[in-house]
């Protein structure tokens, strides 16, 4: 990658602030098959999320398609993180949390009876806002997931493969025995991505993965996502509209209503959401007039 001028022509126009839609061209070129022809991996049907009596997200219905990058955008507090954490049942760790509605992963209702959240989380990986490598060596960070899931194959080979896929191998191949926490922020986040793909999930959820990274590391993560979507389905929460426009195929815009419950305003191909939004709220948000 050219570090001096990371995708200069695209970045040059980003200072304008009003016209994020211009940058869709790149995403458009990457697009192969039309969205609607792709297999649905995740489907939410009339899903609502509650913390105790408070409804954080209401009546969301959406589909996430295979090997696509789906971006969740919207103002702070509109329930994007709650929604994404519902998909891998991470919210089950919050004592007062409860879900209504249905959530299907490859046709299986993840909130059905007899579904073990621990098994769900292996199948639906997650990368967090702040890189959270374990206080172990780089090697052990990647090997931890496979180990706890009883992986039988060659761990060394799996660790190398995962690090290569996360575009981190060249950076760390001589530092496998060093602490994962000694890496730079961007490297730590790629280590967390390597750790996630080491357990071979079907879907990777990313909760604002670049919000604590500098622009160069952000770009590296975005390039990595474009690479990863050849094999994985990715759902990303982002506050950065340029990022959603650059990196995603499908965009879901959420906001919150009078009752402070988040809901989905509009969803569709990223190009459409940014160039020709159907809803006034979406248009105001993507053009930077609110949120």
């Amino acid at each position: 990658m050219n570090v001096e001028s990371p995708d200069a022509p695209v970045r040059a126009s980003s200072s304008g602030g009003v016209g994020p839609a211009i940058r869709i061209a790149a995403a458009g070129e990457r697009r192969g098959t039309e969205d609607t022809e792709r297999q649905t991996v995740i489907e939410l049907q009339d899903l609502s999320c509650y913390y105790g009596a408070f409804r954080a997200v209401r009546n969301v219905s959406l589909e996430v398609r295979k090997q696509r990058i789906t971006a969740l955008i919207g103002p702070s507090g509109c329930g994007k993180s709650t929604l994404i954490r519902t998909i891998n049942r991470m919210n089950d760790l919050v004592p007062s949390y409860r879900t209504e509605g249905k959530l299907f992963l490859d046709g299986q209702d993840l909130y059905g009876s007899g579904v073990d959240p621990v098994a769900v989380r292996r199948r639906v990986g997650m990368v967090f806002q702040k890189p959270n490598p374990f206080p172990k060596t780089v090697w052990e960070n990647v090997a931890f997931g496979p180990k706890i899931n009883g992986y039988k194959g060659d761990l060394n080979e799996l660790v190398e493969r995962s690090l290569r896929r996360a575009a981190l191998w060249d950076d760390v191949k001589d530092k496998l025995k060093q602490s994962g926490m000694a890496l730079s922020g961007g490297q730590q986040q790629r280590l967390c991505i390597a750790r996630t793909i080491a357990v071979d999930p079907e879907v990777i959820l990313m909760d604002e993965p670049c919000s604590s990274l500098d622009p160069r590391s952000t770009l590296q993560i975005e390039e990595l996502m474009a690479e990863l979507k050849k094999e994985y389905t990715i759902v990303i929460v982002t506050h950065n509209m340029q990022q959603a426009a650059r990196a995603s195929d499908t965009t879901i815009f959420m906001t919150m209503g009078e009752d402070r419950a988040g809901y989905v305003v509009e969803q569709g191909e990223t190009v459409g959401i940014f160039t020709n939004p159907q809803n006034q709220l979406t248009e105001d948000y993507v053009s930077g007039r609110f949120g």
Partner: protein
Amino acid sequence: MTATTATPGTTARDRFEPALMRRKLTGTFFYGACIGAIGILFFALLMLLYDVLSRGLPWLDPDFISGVPSRRPERAGILPALIGSLQIGVIVGILTFPTGVAAAIYLSEYAKDNRLNRALRTNISNLSGVPSVIYGIFGLAIFVRALGFGFTLMAGALTLTLLILPVVIIASLEALKAVPDSQREGAYALGASRWQMVRGTLMPAAAPGIMTGIILAMARAIGETAPLILVGAFTFVTFLPNPIEGGYTVLPIQVYQWAGRPQPDFQGISAAAIIVLLVLMLVLNALALIVRIRLSRHIQW
């Protein structure tokens, strides 16, 4: 640009800066007070060391370390008490580690935040403030009498285990709470069960704090005197202790016994025993430091 609400003629500088010198002076005084506080502590330590070393060093020789107590100070040695202290320390450490850590993990990771568990937590904090002689009375009733251990080293070790358990639990609890939640989430997100999260992520991350707490608690157990007097350590022994049979004594009690004699030579060997005890403490504290550095080499938050 002067302030809008000011009365004419006074500038912002006049209104805000008259106290400047005083503010800075207050800071200087506080700095001096801090230095003074440290100085008192440092001075006391130096005096103690000087007093003990000047009186004890002449008596400190290999024969003193390897000898047994005697009626004659020049032939008396410290070995039974030293071995007794070491045995107590090791047994207390072995008993405290699993119980203390397990209790802390329960309180930190498993216990729901309800009234019962909050009361439990508060009471553990209170237990660490109970005078140690109370534990001695408890140990006498339970371990020596009811459970039939008699006046043995084991009864003493069990009593001291109870004494330092609250300290270990609190130290471990603090260490576990200091581990960011993002670590727990990171493990769960890979499909870890709760136990795998605790074992694989939480315990390594909290290990430096937990181990330091346990070693320092062991040092405290080795330095304890009062409860052991009640559970049988106040005896004259000329043999090495057997944990489950026969009498025993420990360093602080040996110090106390000798210091109580009127002859000046016994004061001397008492001081020499204090030096041995201080060295033991120093070793344990150094060990705590080394373990902490070693276990936290991968941790940076």
